[in-house]
């Protein structure tokens, strides 16, 4: 495919648009893009002997685009899959009573809900038990204590995957080289 734009320009547009929406995410992408990659260099010594050494070099613009999209994919596609996977595995566990009973043989009798396959609700604590001041400067109590992790529809994940595929095809410059 021929392009009306270069890889550098595509990367710049992506980061500009990201910055306009969320600076924190944009800087995370920028850090990843700027981290470079390790390559093995070789140095010839005399006629036959070769010496190898590691060197960190910048990504090419094409590679940097791929790195940027990988970072976004981790957030937009992998994260929903983590929640869905956890939901799937928890659904097939039973729910028991609380842990206050000292003896395991008593606890075993107290399974209150054994039907595996039922969806369970799970939450992640976003205000830890020792947190009194949030990192953003606001009192921690202004945040909800926990965040419910809902199951994400497979269709929605597939759509976003399709968006990634489309953007990857538009930023594939391999035929140009």
């Amino acid at each position, binding site marked *: 495919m021929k*392009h009306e734009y270069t890889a550098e320009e595509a990367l710049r547009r992506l980061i500009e*648009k990201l910055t306009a929406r969320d600076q924190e995410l944009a800087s995370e992408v920028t850090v990843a893009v700027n*981290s470079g990659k390790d390559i093995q260099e070789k140095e010839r010594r005399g006629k036959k002997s070769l010496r190898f050494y590691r060197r960190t070099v910048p990504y090419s613009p094409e590679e940097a685009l791929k790195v940027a999209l990988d*970072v976004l994919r981790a957030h*937009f596609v992998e994260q929903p899959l983590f929640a869905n996977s956890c939901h799937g595995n928890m659904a097939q*566990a039973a729910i028991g009573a609380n842990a206050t009973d000292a003896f395991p043989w008593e606890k075993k009798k107290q399974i209150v809900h054994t039907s595996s396959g039922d969806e*369970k609700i799970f939450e992640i604590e976003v205000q*830890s038990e020792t947190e009194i001041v949030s990192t953003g400067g606001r009192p921690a109590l202004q945040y909800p204590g926990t965040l419910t992790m809902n199951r994400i529809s497979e269709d929605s994940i597939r759509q976003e995957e399709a968006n990634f595929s489309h953007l990857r095809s538009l930023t594939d410059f391999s035929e140009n080289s």
Partner: protein
Amino acid sequence: MATLNELENAIDALLDHPLGVGQFQLVRRAEPKAYEAYIFGLCLRAVRELNTMPVLRGISAPPNPFIFRGAPGQIYSRARNYGYAEFAINGQDFEIHAGVEFQGGRMTHELDVCIMRAADANRCRQQPDDPPSASLIGGWECKFYAGTLDKDLGRTFVGLVDDMGANLRLSGLCSNSAHPQLRDYFEPQRRPYPHFRLTPLEVSNEAVFVNLIKAELKKITAS
């Protein structure tokens, strides 16, 4: 010819999708812990594949909802109704925890996800204390990284495992990301297993993680 307009539309579609920037802003504070929850779920799967039903419990009440800790904490803490799972194989009771602190050789350590002996967990809930490292069967450091994995994490976890002593039969650094040098760093014996690219997108890596747990639990409970 791919036009600039097409490129811009494709970027907008990606970022403005319901799972795009908006969803990220909603869940960003929970993202690292969501990865721990995923690994916790894989431990449940390993138990289930041994034909054992794991049971979800809460410290104070039935776990509805099931709450994952947002920061390292004590196993006996009732600040919230923190969840954990228990299971029994061949008459031996075990528990799976997330974000619990343990006694190490010289200081306490947090394990993102672990499998431990239920008797020790129960004792530490009854008489508040951090469980000893000897109660551990397996412990995993879980790192969600959108970019390349940080080398420091490997060094830190190797130190933690060393301080935990020889009772920790299974240990690993789990991440959706990878680092080529860290894989080499983990090669020597007694170092944690590099569970890199451990994500639902890599089914074979999930199978390796689950099978290692299954094999160890079978070995421990065989006699």
